[in-house]
């Protein structure tokens, strides 16, 4: 299935992207003229790890998951990008191949700047370099945290963190997670059996309610990661 392309991006679209907040109207208008909008259906691949990187992508609507895959097919979630976030390699330097795969999590609308356009825009005006520095600085902070999560957190903490990250608040104040145990395992860097055991323990402690294909979070505080919660809030496992 090919992504649906809608050619026009408006200044109003770009105003919804935090990284562009400081850009003046005339620069936004220059950007809007060179960007295109694309739509993807849930599960559709936006780009694959290892492919030549061709664009810088901004989320206008929906959610995109960024994952890494091993040679044997194992999957590790890196992050989830929702409205206003940017993903894709820095088009100015040697990051010529995508370091990860991007997949639409639900119906997604993106706006895209082709890589060669980024290079020509930054030559004419350094404002975009400032925007890119902001974007990649944010990403650096996120990846430092992911490294800590994978290297220093327990599997239980990683699963809890995924539940908080992927919770949608559309159906209730506490949030619902519409992920299978298999997908949750891939995102948390573990196997399905471990996820199932951990969720049973959380349910036993009244932290979540698990129904088929849907997990309802009843106590968000009990799921908070180790760097942000009080020791006394830890669930005894």
């Amino acid at each position: 299935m090919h992504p649906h392309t809608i050619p026009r991006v408006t200044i109003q679209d770009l105003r919804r992207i935090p990284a562009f907040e400081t850009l003046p109207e005339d620069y936004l208008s220059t950007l809007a003229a060179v960007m295109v909008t694309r739509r993807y259906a849930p599960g559709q691949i936006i780009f694959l790890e290892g492919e030549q990187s061709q664009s810088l992508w901004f989320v206008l609507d929906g959610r995109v998951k960024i994952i890494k895959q091993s040679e044997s097919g194992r999957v590790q979630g890196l992050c989830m990008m929702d409205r206003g976030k940017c993903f894709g390699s820095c088009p100015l330097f040697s990051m010529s191949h995508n370091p990860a795969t991007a997949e639409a999590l639900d119906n997604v609308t993106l706006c895209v700047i082709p890589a060669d356009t980024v290079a020509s825009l930054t030559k004419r005006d350094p404002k975009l370099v400032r925007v890119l520095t902001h974007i990649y600085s944010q990403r650096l902070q996120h990846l430092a945290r992911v490294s800590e999560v994978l290297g220093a957190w327990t599997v239980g903490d990683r699963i809890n963190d995924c539940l908080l990250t992927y919770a949608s608040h559309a159906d209730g104040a506490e949030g619902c997670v519409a992920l299978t145990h298999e997908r949750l395992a891939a995102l948390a860097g573990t196997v399905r059996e471990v996820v199932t055991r951990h969720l049973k323990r959380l349910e036993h402690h009244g932290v979540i309610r698990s129904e088929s294909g849907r997990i309802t979070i009843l106590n968000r505080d009990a799921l908070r990661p180790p760097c942000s919660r009080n020791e006394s809030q830890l669930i005894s496992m």
Partner: protein
Amino acid sequence: MVSGAILSDIKLAAELSPRTQRAIAEKAVQVDYMPGIELYQQGDPPSPLHMLLTGRVKLYRQSRDRCQILALPANGDSIGAESLPTGGTSPYAATTLTQVRALVISTVDLQVLLDELPDFQEAFLRLITERLKQFVTLVHDLAFRDVTSRLAMVLVARAEVEGRPQDGGVLFDRLLSQQEYADVVGTAREVVYRTFKRFEDDGLVSMTRRHILIRDLDTLRSIGQQESR
């Protein structure tokens, strides 16, 4: 103010125009640090930029009693100010592992330089994306390689960058304690101890209190490249 020539040893500044180098040199101050000095902490406001002339630093994140070492910058590398563009807090801490001599630029001066010098702004962006690439590789290794493979990879990388050819192999300074090697590969000290012991028993490495001698770099590299199933 320092001499502009000294900046040719710093990757961040080496390719910049003479005018930009002069402007950086005017704002930089040379500082010496003893080993074990915390240059900045995780969660601090944006830290000054440190351009390392000599010595070694560890970048790490800490949660509860666990620590994950993210990188081991050396002379020529620049650290700090990673959160200046966002105005957020430092995403990790930096502590000296050895004596360090660095050129330091305050965040206020750095912001002025970045605003006024487009080539420096671009070099700073490159610095951030290079560190980002390192972290992507680290995440891949933590997710898909086991401890044996990760430790082998760390030793191979150090041998390739810092190793001195010796009789019977490639020698480099040990630099890190066993706990710190565990913090690099994301495991417990006992596991690293057992893995080093196995490497020694298999004739791949020899260790003294201060040095590590890689006896069989090719085998170690092939162990490092294996992904766990």
